[in-house]
Structures are given as structure tokens and as C-alpha cells.
């Protein structure tokens, strides 16, 4: 395929889709599939035929629309009417009401069961209104298993632009200009990372996509890979061109069967069209991508462990420096970015770094996808500009705490993050603000807790996760997390003394600073942040040594 053919294909695909005046999207993400979305899609297609609307309405499967517990979801475009919890047998009535009677069925509208007046146009619903979508823009709109549709939505246009009208330096300059930062959690400036890899002279370099999303309660990367795999692939291809790599690896968590399937389909289609392979689009740039499947180790999300895992070794981290940019996969300069980071690349190249940096805050540009979960009315996947306050996310988008519960804390960044208490609800969600509260952005998990949550037990739970997921290579993390877990368990069991809290404080800082990799380096965060923001919960649990002595227990 050459450039012209790509343009022709895009035009053809656009014409094909513009032919239809309406589009019915059936969410086929993992959660909706689990609640029978495939049957719903089948019924949608049959009923469109039955109603004689074949030439006006097209029906498609799409990726995640963001409201996983309301599924299966059916969206009608361009009206943006979303129906929730659609059973296959209800599809006939729904479509008839929508297209023939032109009277949307009110009782099946999104949030019909929780909002007094559900919105016919879902974009007016506060859940969507406050969101700003760059990464998820086409997620839930296009068919993730169809490259043509991706191309119709300006897919691979950015890659074509980069390849044919920009030098690698220009691409890197554009990314730098956008002030995009790594979405895996640490927030390292992406442009700088690319530049470092670009500067190393080597005849073989690699691009790696980190899709080993391991945080409990996080499903941002999965949704992007399931809903718009080509956007990630395109980002990787642009990265490959920019840093001078000819080979890419997408490391995807093994539990993400559907994401792996869809990404592999995307690879096959891109290869078939010649978008991957030798001399892409008539240029002298060659690039290929392979999928590597993770085996379920949390630590393999750490870049050096991920590299070891791709190499076929035991997935344990190694000390940095040397950084992967210098000495990564098989000793070669390697660029590693998160799924979400790659998904940002094409829009940046297409619209310019300036456009991207207008969203978000001065230090954290762009948007961030969060997986909103826990004690919250409307949970799901949301994308908001960086710097959006926690209050807006929890109360405006998420609808607040269900029932008569009261907000207590929000845990960001999964087991490596911290808890943010009520008095800091107005914190803007960006890298620095979260860091200053003892939490991290992480990959975007956001768990809301109400007053019934026991913060000491929350700290113990996350410590247990880190203890089990520690790879066992370095002593501080291997033994330190176990020790902290045991001490927290003592406090939870009502056998903890002030002495235990002192030991926990000391160990937490030690494990944070002395550990080899980021797992140990951030494992104490839930403990430290709960100690900082909820000291009274610890104090209330403590007993005096006399009580333990009376029971002949260990102090």
C-alpha cells in the first residue's frame, strides 16, 4: 500500500459509513460481553433487517463506553442516546421505539433507574458532560475489529503525516511541545524519553508497549486495547519512526484475552494493508510489532522486569542505571511507554502539540483516563482533563456516594498509591498535586471509600497485595513488605501497640528508599498516606503493652 491508496481507502470508508444516517453501537467490551452483549448485537442486526432499515441504520460492535456496571449498553448515533442493561429480547421494542415511533424508551435510557430525569442525549448527562475525550474519543464509536473504520476516522493519518512530512526530530519536538507525560504512573516527560532513545546510536532499537495493567480495580489500558487497538498501534509506529526502531513489542497482560485478540487482529489487518512490514507506505521505514503475553505478575509492569519477561527470563527488575533507553531489550536501546501514552500520540501529531498542551494544567498536559470504582454511584471509565478536582470526579461525574453514605477517602494509583481524605477533595488530579499528598497518579485507578471503610485494613489489604506480588529479588521489598503486613495485621487484630506503629513508620520509609524497583519504592504509600491522613484510626486500634502482657502475647 502506498500513500495514495491509504487516502483512497479512507475516502471509500468514509463514503461507506456516511451512507447510513444512523448508527447503533453495541458495547462489546469484556464486561458487556459478560452480560450477553454478543446476543444483543445479533438481535440488533436482525431487528434492523426486520424493520427494513438496512439502508439507513448500520449496527456495529464497539469498545467500552465507560459504564461497565450498566451493561450491555446500546448507543444510537448521532443522537447519543444510550440504553442500559439491554436484554436480547428487549432489542426489538427498543429499536422500533427509536427508529419507527421516534420515541426513545424512557425506562431503558442510561441511568433511568437512578436519575429522576434521564437524558435522551447522553452527552448532556453530567457523567459525560464533564469529560473530555482524546484517548477514548473513538472508543465506543468505532468497530475495534475493523481497520477500515479506524481509517475512516482519520486513522493512520497521523502516522502518514509523521512519516512523510516530518523528520524524526520534528516528531520528537512535537511530542516535547505537547508536554505529554508518561501515563504509566511516574509521569516522565514522553518527549524527553523519546529523545534519549533517539540519540543512542545503534542499528537495532526497540519500541515496547506496556500493557501489563496490574493494579486491582484498574482497567484503563484494557478498555483502550479492546476499544481502539489501532490507536495504540499507530502510536507505537510513530514512536518507532521517531526513535529509529524497527521492531515493537506489545506486552499485554495474559488475563486480557479480548484485548490480546483485538490487538492481534489489528496487527494482522495492518500487516495485510502493508502498514506494518518493510518499506511502509513507500518509505524506507520498516516496522513490525509482536504481541507478548504476560503471565500475571504485577511486577512485570515495571519496565526492567517487563524487558526480562519479554526476553524469556524470570520477570524480575534490575537496577537502573543503565536505563532501558540505553540498554534495554536484549541490551539494545529500548523505548517503553504505557498503552495510554501511545494512544495520545496520533492525536498530538495530527492536531499539534500546541493543541494538546491547551488541555490540562501547566505541568500536566492533556487528559487522563481513570477507572472510577468503589463506593460511588456511577462507576466506570472516565477521561478528564488533568487538574480536574477530585470533588468534580467523585460528585459531579460519579454522582457521589450511594445511599446515605459519606465520602471518606479516595485511593489513587492502586496498591502503589495513597489515600486522599475529605479535606483534600479539591485537589486537582495531576502528578505533582497527588505526589504532595503522598499519593501518586499511577496508571489511573481511583477507588472511592465511604465512612464504613476501615483505613488500617485498607492499608493492610494493599500491603498484602504488594507482599504477594513482590518478586523476591531484593531484601527490603521481599522481607519488608511481609514485616509491614504482619505488623498491620497485628494492629487490625487489636494486638498492636505504639511500638508497632513506630516500627511501621521506620520500615515504610526504609522500604520506600532502599528497594530496588518501583514496586518496593511505592508499596508503603497506602500505609504512609493512611498514617498521615488518618492517624486517629491507628491510635484507636492500639492497645497498651499491659493488655498484651496480660494475655502472654508477644510485644
Amino acid at each position, binding site marked *: 500500500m502506498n500513500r495514495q491508496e491509504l487516502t483512497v481507502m479512507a475516502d471509500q470508508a468514509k463514503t461507506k459509513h456516511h451512507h447510513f444516517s444512523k448508527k447503533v453501537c453495541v458495547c462489546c467490551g469484556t464486561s458487556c460481553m459478560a452480560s450477553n452483549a454478543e446476543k444483543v448485537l445479533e438481535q440488533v442486526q436482525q431487528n434492523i433487517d426486520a424493520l427494513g432499515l438496512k439502508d439507513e441504520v448500520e449496527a456495529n460492535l464497539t469498545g467500552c463506553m465507560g459504564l461497565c456496571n450498566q451493561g450491555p449498553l446500546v448507543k444510537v448515533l448521532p443522537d447519543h442516546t444510550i440504553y442500559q442493561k439491554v436484554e436480547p429480547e428487549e432489542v426489538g421494542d427498543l429499536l422500533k421505539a427509536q427508529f419507527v415511533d421516534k420515541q426513545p424508551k424512557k425506562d431503558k435510557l442510561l441511568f433511568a433507574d437512578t436519575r429522576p430525569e434521564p437524558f435522551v442525549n447522553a452527552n448532556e448527562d453530567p457523567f459525560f458532560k464533564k469529560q473530555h475525550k482524546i484517548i477514548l474519543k473513538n472508543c465506543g464509536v468505532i468497530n475495534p475489529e475493523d481497520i477500515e473504520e479506524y481509517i475512516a476516522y482519520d486513522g493512520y493519518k497521523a502516522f502518514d503525516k509523521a512519516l512523510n512530512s516530518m523528520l524524526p526530530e520534528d516528531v520528537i519536538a512535537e511530542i516535547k511541545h505537547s508536554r505529554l507525560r508518561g501515563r504509566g504512573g511516574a509521569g516522565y516527560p514522553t518527549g524527553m524519553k523519546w529523545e534519549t532513545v533517539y540519540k543512542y546510536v545503534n542499528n537495532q532499537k526497540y519500541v515496547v508497549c506496556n500493557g501489563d495493567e496490574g493494579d486491582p480495580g484498574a482497567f484503563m489500558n484494557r478498555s483502550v486495547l479492546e476499544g481502539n487497538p489501532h490507536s495504540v498501534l499507530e502510536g507505537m509506529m510513530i514512536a518507532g519512526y521517531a526513535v529509529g526502531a524497527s521492531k515493537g513489542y506489545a506486552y499485554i497482560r495474559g488475563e486480557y484475552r479480548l484485548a490480546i485478540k483485538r490487538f492481534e487482529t489489528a496487527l494482522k489487518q495492518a500487516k495485510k494493508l502493508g502498514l506494518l512490514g518493510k518499506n511502509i507506505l513507500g518509505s524506507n521505514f520498516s516496522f513490525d510489532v509482536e504481541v507478548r503475553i504476560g503471565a500475571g505478575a504485577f511486577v512485570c509492569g515495571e519496565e526492567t522486569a517487563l524487558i526480562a519477561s519479554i526476553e524469556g527470563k524470570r520477570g524480575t527488575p534490575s537496577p537502573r542505571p543503565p536505563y532501558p533507553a540505553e540498554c534495554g531489550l536484549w541490551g539494545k536501546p529500548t523505548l517503553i511507554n504505557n498503552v495510554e501514552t501511545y494512544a495520545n500520540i496520533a492525536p498530538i501529531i495530527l492536531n499539534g502539540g500546541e493543541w494538546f498542551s491547551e488541555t490540562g494544567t501547566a505541568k500536566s498536559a492533556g487528559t487522563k483516563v481513570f477507572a472510577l470504582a468503589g463506593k460511588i454511584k456511577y462507576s466506570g471509565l472516565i477521561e478528564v482533563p488533568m487538574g480536574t478536582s477530585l470533588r468534580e470526579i467523585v460528585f459531579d461525574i460519579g454522582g457521589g456516594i450511594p445511599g446515605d453514605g459519606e465520602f471518606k477517602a479516595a485511593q489513587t494509583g492502586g496498591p502503589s498509591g495513597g489515600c486522599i481524605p475529605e479535606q483534600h477533595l479539591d485537589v486537582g488530579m495531576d502528578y505533582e498535586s497527588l505526589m504532595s499528598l503522598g499519593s501518586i497518579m499511577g496508571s489511573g485507578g481511583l477507588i472511592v471509600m465511604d465512612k464504613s471503610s476501615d483505613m488500617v485494613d485498607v492499608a493492610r489489604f494493599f500491603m498484602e497485595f504488594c507482599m504477594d506480588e513482590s518478586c523476591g529479588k531484593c531484601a527490603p521489598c521481599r522481607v519488608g513488605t511481609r514485616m509491614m503486613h504482619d505488623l498491620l495485621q497485628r494492629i487490625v487484630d487489636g494486638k498492636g501497640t505504639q511500638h508497632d506503629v513506630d516500627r511501621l513508620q521506620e520500615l515504610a520509609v526504609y522500604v520506600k528508599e532502599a528497594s530496588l524497583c518501583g514496586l518496593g519504592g511505592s508499596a508503603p504509600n497506602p500505609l504512609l498516606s493512611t498514617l498521615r491522613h488518618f492517624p486517629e484510626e491507628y491510635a484507636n486500634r492500639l492497645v497498651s503493652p499491659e493488655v498484651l*502482657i496480660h494475655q502472654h502475647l*508477644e*510485644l
Partner: protein
Amino acid sequence: MKKKLATVWLGGCSGCHMSLLDIDERILEVAKLADIVKCPIVDGKPFPEVDIALVEGSVTSDEHYEEILHIRKQAKVLVALGDCAVMTNITGMRNYFPLQEVMAAAYTHSPSNDGEGMWPNHAALLKLHGKVLPLQSVVTVDVVVPGCPPSADTIFYVLYELLNDRMPDLSTAQKLKYG
């Protein structure tokens, strides 16, 4: 005024006491500065108020537990003498197994017993705890002397420093030894 010195033997093998005796004629130096008011081989009177208590062995039973609490109250300076007192050592090797298994191994399955498998359970006997604990897991310990046993030189050094109102520092004195 002469200081009062006492030694006691909890869950240990008495090896540390043997090592204490190995200070030989230096016991005279100790005797100049202190009266040994209580020691396992002296008598069975309750533990008196003392300036220095040398405690050998770990806490393995209810009796030891009460005893070490009592000693802590009575002693101005409590010295954990030997590896058992400091880190449970050999006495702690039963901590890898449940107490019932340990008892069965000793009193039922051991080739040397009479095969009846009678476990000692007289009311006057101490009750073993499920887990052997080092002293600092029960009380505050002032001076720690590891070693199995600590050498006579080390014990004398510690005693001599304490009797002269100085805190011994095994690390600086290069007298640290485990095992």
C-alpha cells in the same frame, strides 16, 4: 556501696552460666564490686531487688513469662545473656512446628521413650507456650549480649563496665558474636 548482682536461667541450656564461670579468677574482681545475691544454683527464694540481672534463655512458658516480668520490675539493668535470650536460638527451633507436634515428637514418637506416649501434665509443671519468644519481645532489655555462649571475656567485659557504671558497647569493643 557494692552493687547487687543476680543471674537467672529461663529457657536455655545453662551454657551461658558455664561461660560466666569461665571468667575464672576474674570473679574476684566482680566480687569486689558486687554481691551475687541470686543465682540458679544458690536457692529458690524469690528474685530480689537488684542492680544488675543477667538473664539466660528465652521465654518458653507461662512460668518464664511471669518470671521475666517480675525480674524486669526488680532489676535496674536487665541483661539478655546469650543467643537464646536475644534471638531464641535453639530453643526457638520448635517455632517452625505446632506445639502439639513438638510434644508428640518428644514424648510419643521418640525412639527412647517407653512407647506409652504419656505427656507430662502435672499441675506443678510449667505450661509451654506455642511460640518461644526472645526477651525483648516481652520486656524492655537494657543490654544485649549475643553468643552461644558469649565468651567469658565478653561476659566479664559487660559485667565490669556495668559495675563501673558504664554502658558496655559490644560493637565498638568488637565483641559481637552470634552462635
